[in-house]
């Protein structure tokens, strides 16, 4: 009877795992099936072909997305981590911290298109033109709540004994927080940053209102630039089969690039980890 229950529980766990992994695998397989044929060197080296002409690539979109995500990370990661450190270490129990936490949770629930409109009103409207900068700000703001709340949760999981050990050595509190607590929690904090990064990497709606898109090559932060999700969106709606195929290829490239970026960060940050460290 007991082994039956054990088998049932294990079976359920395996089934759940399969159900969790299956959609990702299905999406990936379908993208490869639809898009891999259109992947060639030109896809990575050429800009989109003029309307109605065959060929072309998404070189500008790949670079544009990299710029936007870089900008977003520069804004979202430090602000999110800083906020998380405040919530967990310095503002614990204060009314202000509770207000910040509540705001972050609400911000997390704001639909991305609303974020695009807000940044449109705050930046694009006053600058009177669309720009990469506005898009980076929109994506960066979207990263903040996820980074902030995971940082807080991870810091709170650091055992009290570790903090006490640092304080008992005569280490000032701020130093102990930065060098001991944050360092101990860093694997979890990095995971939070990666989640936020991956989440905004595929965002399209906020970019429509801020970056606009650009069929030509541009790396100027003050101009509209191309971005992979925008290009996919435009091509998917186009009447040409060739562009549909390019949209599939773009989606495949986007997913692969996200996976690569996340793996790279994991690889770089896991080096130097000591034997036996948990």
């Amino acid at each position, binding site marked *: 009877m007991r082994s039956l229950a054990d088998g049932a529980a294990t079976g359920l766990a395996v089934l759940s795992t399969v159900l969790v992994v299956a959609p990702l695998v299905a999406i990936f397989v379908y993208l490869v099936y639809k898009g891999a044929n259109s992947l060639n060197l030109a896809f990575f080296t050429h800009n989109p072909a003029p309307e109605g002409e065959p060929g072309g690539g998404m070189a500008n979109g790949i670079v544009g997305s990299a710029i936007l995500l870089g900008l977003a990370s520069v804004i979202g990661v430090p602000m999110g981590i800083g906020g998380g450190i405040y919530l967990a270490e310095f503002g614990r129990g204060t009314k202000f911290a509770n207000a910040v936490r509540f705001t972050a949770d609400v911000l997390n629930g704001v639909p991305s298109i609303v974020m695009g409109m807000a940044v449109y009103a705050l930046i694009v409207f006053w600058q009177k033109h669309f720009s990469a900068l506005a898009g980076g700000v929109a994506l960066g703001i979207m990263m903040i709540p996820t980074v902030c709340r995971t940082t807080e949760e991870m810091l709170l999981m650091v055992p009290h004994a570790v903090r006490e050990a*640092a304080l008992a050595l*005569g280490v000032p509190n701020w130093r102990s927080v930065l060098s001991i607590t944050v360092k*101990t929690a860093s694997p979890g904090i990095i995971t939070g940053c990666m989640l936020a990064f991956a989440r905004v990497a595929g965002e399209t709606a906020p970019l429509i209102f801020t970056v606009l898109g650009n069929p030509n090559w541009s790396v100027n932060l003050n101009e509209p630039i191309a971005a992979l999700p925008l290009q996919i969106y435009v091509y998917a709606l186009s009447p040409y089969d060739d562009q549909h195929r390019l949209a599939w290829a773009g989606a495949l490239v986007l997913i692969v690039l996200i996976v690569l970026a996340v793996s790279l960060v994991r690889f770089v940050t896991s080096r130097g980890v000591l034997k036996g460290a948990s």
Partner: protein
Amino acid sequence: MGVGIEVLSLNAWYGTNHTLQDINLNIPANHATALIGPSGCGKSTFVRCLNRMHETNPIARVTGTVRIGELDIYNDAKPVEIRRSVGMVFQRPNPFPTMSIYDNVAAGLKLNGYSNRRALDEIVEKSLKNSALWDEVKDDLKKKSGASLSGGQQQRLCIARALAVDPEVLLMDEPASALDPVSTSKIEDLIFQLKSQYTIVIVTHNMQQAARVAEKTGFFLNGRMVEFDSTHKIFTNPSDKRTEDYITGRFG
């Protein structure tokens, strides 16, 4: 070298709970002093008042005077300065999990801005030798994490970490209660060696341990210090009936 500790009418609270009531005693320099008593009697709170760790809890409060050597620690100095000269070893070994063995020992100095590599190497070696851990870890100082050691080794690592900042006083809050008998006897041997250089205050539940390592023993009960005398006197001929009852196992 160690210095003596003078405690005058020390009172401590956690919220409204009056955990220490009017404690007066003189702890001699370069000796080991044991504090015994049942759980919740205030002995841990007492040692935490000696390096001002008590007040790191936001609801905690302290009144009274504690002099360590010439220094009135509640009036003449900041908590971080005191904690550098009064080291502490906790009940459960608490090495920094992300740091190597070397960095664990050097942590107190490094985090206070000390960066002379050669001097650090020497201090780390000396501290690990003083805590009788050197021979076991010298080959993978920078390769292994402090958390990869056994419990007894981790506790000796924590002692080395406390010694590295060159304190005058070493507080030990039940340092062996989470360890097996072999590791416990190693820690006790260590206390025996260290007390010639440091003033040691050790909280313990284990009365044999107090008898083995300490010259002086204080008995705490319900937030008060019932009796403080030479260890021999406390264990053979205590003046107070309550001490005798506790020693002979009638309660606690």
